[in-house]
Every structure is written in C-alpha cells, then in structure tokens.
C-alpha cells in the first residue's frame, strides 16, 4: 500500500510539470495582460506601460518567465497577487474557506438527495415515482447554473424576500455566535439550492444505474432465496456493491470543494474563491490565477490517488501493487 502510494506520487511529477506548462502558456498567451487591463485610459503613455510591465516582470521572454514562476512555486512561493497587493497564499486563504463551506453543504445535500432518489427509482423501476423523477432530473440537468441561479434569486430573494439577495452576512450587522451562524445559513440557502439542484440529477442517475446493474445479479437472487429481510438484501447486498464505483466519484469530487463555483458565487455575491478567481482572470492577475489553478491541480492528483486507495480497500477483488 505505502509502496503503491509512493509510486503513484512519483508518477504524478511529470503530470504536474506538464500541467503547469500548459496552464502557464494558456494564461500567458491569452491576449492582454495586467497592465493593459488596469490602465485602459488614454492618458497612459506607452513608455509608462513598458515601465509597469518591467516592474511586474511581464517584459521578459516566456521561457524565462515560466522558469522563474515554476522555481518560486517549487519553493512554495506563489508570489503576490497583483490586484490585492498581498501574497497569493493569503488571498486564497481569505476566500477559499467560504467556498469550502458552500461546497461541503452542496456535497452533503447532493449525495443525500441523489442516493435516496437513485436507490428508490432503482428498486421501484418503471413506477410512477421513477418516471417523474427521471423527468424532473432531466429538466434540472439541462438548466445552466446562471439561469437557475437568477431564477431562484428573482423568486425567493427579490419577489418573496424569503432569503437575502446575496453576500455571506447581512451588511452592517454584528452578529456573533448562534445569530451569526443563522445569518450565514440564510445566505447559503439559495446558492446551495442552485448548485445542489443542478448536480443532483446526474448523480442520482449514477445511483440508479449502479443499483439496477447490481439488483439483477444472481447474488441478489441468492440473498432473496436465503430469505433475508428485504432491507438487508437492498442495503447490505445491493447497495454495498453499487456504491463501489461511486467511491471514486465521491473522492474525485473532493477537490471541487476548494475550487469554488465561479458563476454562482458571482450571482449571489458570495465571497468565495470562485468569484475572486473570475475577477483575477478578468484583470489578468496571473500570480493569483496560476497559484489557484496549480493548487486545484495538485488536489486533483491527490484525489485520484486517494480514490484508487479507497477502491482497493473497499473491493476485495482489487489488490494494489
């Protein structure tokens, strides 16, 4: 096991280098840079712009820029964010936990609802419930997040005024303790609902398909023939096997907890990393964008290794070498 993990970690080094080059190039080769974005006013002289470029290190040739950036990354220095004028690491730290909070809530509801709908549709295949669930899921599935986000915002925040229109806390309030928690929770409802509704469909289909696949296996008939309680048949025999492929899916979703949701955070003005990174892209704040992207890349690679390890533990047929 330890050997497997070490080998996988070593194997991921080239992946990481390759990914860093691609990410760097995409960002560097995109038209415009921080200087053109920041000082789009006619009074700006070309000389002054060149000076600023030299200041931010944007005037050097690409390979040199890459090597110096990658070298810093290796030493754990992500540099300073151009727009926040402070270390990238502290910008990320300021915002990522807000995204994490949303992400965990979404993941919780997404998996809870999807498992219930998926399992129930599978054990009642062809029932009215199954048909209606399928229909609703495909409708939700096809909605873009900005549309559903704005729709919920209009109905529940603007018209009905049940929930705040945006932000994470009520502006000007100074709640502490329980009141603070309730305030944040209220602000979370709409963004969490938006993202849960959008993701729950796909996941519940996974649950349904896997359950259906397992339920028709002979060992489920064996379990029934033994006269086990239907609950035992479904949960102990069927679900435990149907969950196997979902372990991988679950683990691979972990990095997204930290990635933030750019569009939805923007719509609900949630102070998360997604919203900040969207802004960073817009103003070409390359140290912040690159730092964030590399962080997510590393998390994704780690999640892949974790997924394999967990699968190996859960499925006795798999032995990790």
């Amino acid at each position, binding site marked *: 096991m330890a050997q497997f993990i070490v080998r996988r970690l070593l194997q991921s080094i080239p992946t990481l280098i390759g990914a860093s080059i691609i990410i760097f190039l995409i960002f560097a080769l995109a038209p415009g840079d921080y200087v053109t974005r920041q000082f789009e006013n006619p009074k700006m002289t070309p000389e002054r712009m060149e000076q600023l470029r030299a200041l931010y290190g944007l005037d050097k040739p690409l390979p040199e820029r890459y090597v110096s950036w990658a070298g810093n990354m290796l030493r754990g220095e992500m540099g300073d964010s151009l727009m926040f004028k402070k270390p990238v690491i502290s910008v990320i730290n300021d915002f990522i936990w807000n995204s994490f909070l949303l992400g965990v809530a979404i993941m919780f509801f997404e998996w809870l609802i999807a498992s219930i709908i998926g399992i129930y549709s599978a054990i009642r295949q062809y029932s009215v419930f199954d048909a209606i669930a399928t229909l609703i899921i495909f409708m939700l599935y096809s909605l873009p997040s900005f549309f559903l986000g704005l729709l919920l915002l209009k109905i529940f925040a603007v018209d009905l005024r049940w929930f705040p229109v945006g932000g994470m806390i009520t502006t000007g309030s100074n709640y502490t303790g329980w009141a603070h928690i309730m305030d944040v929770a209220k602000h979370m409802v709409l963004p969490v609902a938006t993202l849960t509704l959008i993701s729950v469909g796909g996941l519940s289909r996974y649950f349904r398909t896997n359950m259906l696949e397992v339920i028709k296996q002979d060992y489920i*008939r*064996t379990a029934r023939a033994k*006269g086990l309680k*239907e609950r*035992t048949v479904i949960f102990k025999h069927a679900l435990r*096997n149907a969950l196997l492929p979902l372990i991988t899916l679950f683990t691979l979703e972990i990095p997204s907890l930290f990635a933030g949701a750019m569009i939805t955070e923007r719509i609900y003005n949630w102070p998360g990393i997604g919203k900040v990174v969207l802004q960073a892209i817009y103003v070409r704040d390359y140290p912040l964008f690159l730092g964030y992207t590399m962080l997510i890349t590393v998390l994704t690679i780690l999640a892949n290794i974790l997924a394999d390890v967990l699968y190996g533990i*859960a499925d*006795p047929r798999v032995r990790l070498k």
Partner: protein
Amino acid sequence: MSEPLIEVKNLKKYFPIRGGILQRTIGYVKAVDGVTFTINKGETLSLVGESGCGKSTVGRTIIRLYDKTDGEVFYKSIPIHNLKKNELRKLRPKMQLVFQDPFSSLNPRLRVGDAIGEALLDHGLISRNELRDKVIETMEICGLAPYHVDRYPHEFSGGQRQRIGIARALILDPEFIVLDEPVSSLDVSIQAQIINLLMDLQQQKGLTYLFISHDLSVVEHISTRVAVMYLGNIVEMASRDELFDHPLHPYTQALLSAVPIPDPDLKRERIILEGDIPSPANPPKGCKFHTRCPLAKDICREQVPEYKDVGGGHFVACHLV
C-alpha cells in the same frame, strides 16, 4: 412412498416486454406457459430442454423468487404464492436454490463464511457463538477447508465456488433444492465431483431436487424422473428409464438422438431439428413444436395437443401418441 412435496398446477410466468420512451409494456415473453407436475419427497426431478425454453423460470417461480402470472404452487400443501411476505420469508430456508454461474451468484464483497452463515443468523436459527463452528462443519461436508472461511469468493475456482453455493443452501437445512444447471459451467472432471456430492447429500439428508440441465448424460445419471420442456411447456414427463428407453414425443426423441452412446455397436440415428427455436414472445399456434417437428400434420398447426397420461405416469403432449 411417493408423497408429493411440491405440486405445480398450470403455472404460468410471463415477463413484460417494454418499449418506447415511456417504457410501457408492449407484449409478453411467455417464459412458462402452463406447466403441471409434482415432485415427490426424496426424488430428483430433472428439467431438460434447449436454452431459453423456460427451465430457470420454472425453478425460480416455484420457490417464488419470481411472482407467478397464473397457476398454483404448493409446498407441502402450502400455496406459496398466496403467502404474505413474512410468512414466505420464514419458509425460505426450506426451499433453496443453487445457481448455474458460481461467479455471479456469490456477493463479491462478502466473505465466504458470512455468505454461508448470514441467513442462519438472520432467521435467528443460531447464536453468534455457535455460528462459526456450524459454518465450518457445513463447509467440510461440502468439501471445503476450514481456513477458507475468511476468504472472498474471487479467491476460489469455479468448482470450489459451486461447493460454497451448495454449502450456503445446505446450512439452512432445506427439504427442497432447485439446482439450476449447477455443473454446466464446470470442467467435466469437476462436474463428476459436484454431482457425486449432490447425490451423497441427497441420500444422507433425504433432500428433494429439481435438477435443471441440458446435459442429458448427467440427467440420466442423477434423475428419478425427467420432464422435457419446449417453449414454456412440458411436452413429456416420465420416469428416467421409461423416458430414455421409450421416448414418445418427437422432440424428446430428437434430444436423445444427440446424446453420445458409450457402446459403439449400438448406433442411434441422429435426428437433426430444422429451423430456429421460435420466440416465446410469439409462439406458434397449435403444437408449439410444429415448426420444427419432422412428423407434423395439419392438425398440429391448429390444435394444441392434450398433455395426457399414457400409462404408468408417462405424460406426453403430442397428437400422434
């Protein structure tokens, strides 16, 4: 001495065929289309016929792994399709099933000992302390070693897995076991071992078997009586010797003519059946066999032949007999 254990009366099992986006029922596969037979205590009734003729469906419906479409099944005069779910569950241990495919019939995530023992515990037939000894004892009876108890199914060969399947049925102390092609996926040398195990167990415990097979040499070895199925119906049933020596139905004659005879002087003329097996969703009118029967007459295309006793418990359904 011939006391009936299982009585099956005009049993039918139709599977819905679904189609269209709404998955509505657009027809039925008449997998079992009215079969009547009795299995006496302590005997082995074999069910033979080509693939898809409904043998497995009969086996599964008489122990109510499938709900019937029509007809009746009695176990010791108990109409098992009328039982409530919990009454049925209590009766399950008495009627067991061994599947053809020893790979898919064992839950991959369940240790062998648990697979064999779990139902005893679930039915409250044993205490946790006694369980392990009982499991190991049963495993030894079935030719498995005690140290196998903590292994997972994938670590075993096909023959060993079939022993596990037999052990898990046997431990419940059943009276009746449906053996659904228990050896057809095994090597010939292993087949003999498993057949001998099954025959020994039957002798020691007075078990009653429904033995499903399409291998007539195995059937000749193990059976007390034999029933021949074609497209969801029994076309002929008789004691083993009677059926092998005096087959009356043209289909039985054709099946038997394909069995190799050990004595080279005794030549049997091989009857080759023309054409494919018709679909059980749309079976031929009259005698279902008329599309392939070398002796078919006009009446065969119109009228369903009566299934009648021609003497001494030899039943046959053919206009010519």
